[in-house]
């Protein structure tokens, strides 16, 4: 009872409680662009989840070669108009292999969204643990963890990921590996945010009250700090997802990310530039899919940020380092 009252009075603790959540939804609903973005994201998730169903309806799969659908005399250009679009192949077929483009595109959505979400979960998990431990731990723990975080932040993500992905044997399941590598390298900024927020909360009366009433560090971290750091963490994580999608696409584009035959949008673009005249949709579809997905998730992330902290919204309409890095 007393705890609840104390918690509710803490300034800046935006997340906890039903009223906070209700307020969040109300603010989110009033932003038109955010709503459109949310619908687009929901559709994308639906497509990714229903990929096997959708391709079953089409009657194709992403990995079967159709040599009869490409003109081997002309270097493997798809036969038929618009890159071989037909009732059987809704978006045409891939040059050279004749694999179905629609199937590859929707299965690619699974890889993109799955890897990005998994990487974000890893980043948030490490970031929260390190950040809270640094804020609540003894002085030397904070020193060690904070310096380590600084070093992690200084490491160029793309370069490290590129190098790491190449040396791990390819027998390791590739999408899992990509998510792990992104997650293990790029948690520095979130740890810094969590530490700063946890330090602020730690100085507030309601946490001091909990400490005085004999609560242990673990219980304080879980019951008093975690609800308070939820808002900044959600805000940042919402913008990490599109960033991670771009990173996965970039790594697969360079040939070290998700490997064939598993389809990925970035990987589809690797070979696309030489086909832009003969089969333009081979380039436009994955590029467009990437663009729409990253744009929708970014707008949604901006909206979440505004809804969680309207006061800081204008001030915070600022890129984060990770995000920039990701678009690279």
């Amino acid at each position: 009872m007393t705890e609840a009252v104390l918690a509710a009075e803490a300034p800046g603790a935006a997340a906890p409680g039903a009223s906070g959540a209700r307020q969040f939804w109300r603010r989110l609903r009033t932003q038109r662009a955010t709503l459109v973005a949310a619908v687009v994201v929901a559709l994308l998730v639906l497509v990714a989840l229903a990929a096997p169903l959708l391709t079953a309806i089409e009657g194709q799969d992403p990995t079967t070669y159709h040599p009869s659908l490409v003109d081997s005399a002309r270097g493997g250009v798809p036969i038929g108009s618009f890159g071989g679009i037909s009732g059987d192949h809704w978006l045409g077929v891939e040059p050279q292999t004749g694999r179905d483009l629609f199937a590859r595109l929707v299965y690619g959505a699974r890889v993109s969204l799955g890897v990005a979400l998994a990487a974000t979960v890893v980043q948030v998990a490490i970031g929260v643990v390190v950040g809270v431990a640094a804020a609540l731990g003894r002085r030397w723990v904070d020193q060690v963890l904070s310096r380590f975080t600084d070093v992690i932040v200084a490491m160029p993500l793309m370069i490290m990921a590129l190098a790491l992905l190449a040396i791990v044997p390819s027998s390791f399941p590739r999408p899992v590996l990509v998510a792990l590598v992104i997650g293990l390298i790029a948690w520095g900024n979130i740890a810094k945010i969590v530490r700063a927020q946890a330090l602020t909360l730690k100085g507030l009366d309601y946490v001091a009250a909990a400490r005085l009433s004999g609560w242990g560090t673990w219980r304080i971290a879980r019951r008093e700090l975690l609800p308070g750091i939820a808002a900044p963490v959600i805000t940042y994580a919402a913008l990490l997802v599109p960033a991670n999608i771009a990173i996965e696409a970039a790594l697969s584009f360079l040939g070290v990310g998700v490997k064939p035959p598993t389809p990925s949008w970035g990987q589809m673009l690797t070979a696309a530039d030489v086909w832009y005249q003969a089969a333009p949709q081979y380039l436009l579809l994955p590029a467009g899919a990437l663009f729409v997905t990253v744009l929708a998730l970014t707008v949604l992330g901006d909206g979440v940020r505004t809804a969680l902290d309207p006061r800081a919204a204008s001030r915070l309409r600022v890129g984060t380092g990770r995000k920039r890095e990701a678009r690279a």
Partner: protein
Amino acid sequence: MSGLAGLTGFALRRTVGALVTLLAISVIVYVVFYVTPGNVAQITCGPRCSPAQVQQVAEQLHLNDPLYTRYLNFLQGLVAGQDYSTGTSVQHCSAPCLGLSYQSDQQVTALILAKLPVSLSLVFGAMVLWLILGVGTGVLSAWRRGRLTERLLTGVTLVGVATPVFVIGLVLMIVVCGQLQLLPFPQYVALTDDPEQWAWNLLLPWLSLALIEAAAFARLTRAAMLETLAEDHIRTFRAYGVGERSVIGRHALRGAVAPVIALNANNFGGAVGGAVLTETLFGLPGIGQELVHAVNVVDLPVVVGMVLVIGFFVVLANAVADVLYAVADRRVVLA
């Protein structure tokens, strides 16, 4: 006078901090790359090597030595140089020595120095562009706030934020070089050979890298300026009759200087990552392209050397930013 001394001391402390960070990065990078599973000797020797030959290669590359002696050797080479026996002859690798390539026995330092001008041309040229484009767009949208211009610019920058660099590069290359044939496909020409050709050939790579980065700077500049415009001292300026042009161009812009410096340092590592993609896409023979190659043949000394050199530039960028930050804003505590 004391301010200057304070600044020098601050710069010194910052340099020491940067060196410690670099050392820590070198340890992490070294450990991570040399303990990761994968049979380096087999890959280096080739698929048809017999177990005995593989063993010999492992011996020659010191792959069987304990990790810490190898790291200490590496550090020694970095500081004092080192001699390498390559079968028959002995090769001296002078400091800063990053070791020899597994593939070609070339010195990694020389390899990197040969590629560095291309990457530096790309990154710093693009940086000039993204700062001009980004800050310019930000100022313009803060000045024309609430009007059509601002809405258009906000939309354009959002598109820039959401487009991966290789997609923009791909589209630019196809449209400008392929369809319109305005420019030939880029081919690197050294600045010292022909400055004009250097710039023309780098124009598209610069644009691809800069357009994306510029979007972030536009958003930041606009936000920082709008925040400053809401402050009391701006109202005072206006009340004294200072013109809008001066309010925007001089006083509000001042509020954006520090955040722009910070973002530039923060995004530098990302831009280097973007440069790898840009180099690969346009076939520019820079560090990025070399790194992708080295990574594919598991040439660990080259990979580690390049990651360290890039890390060096990132740490340098952050240190420079901290000093600039202190120069630009005297309120910053020099701690």
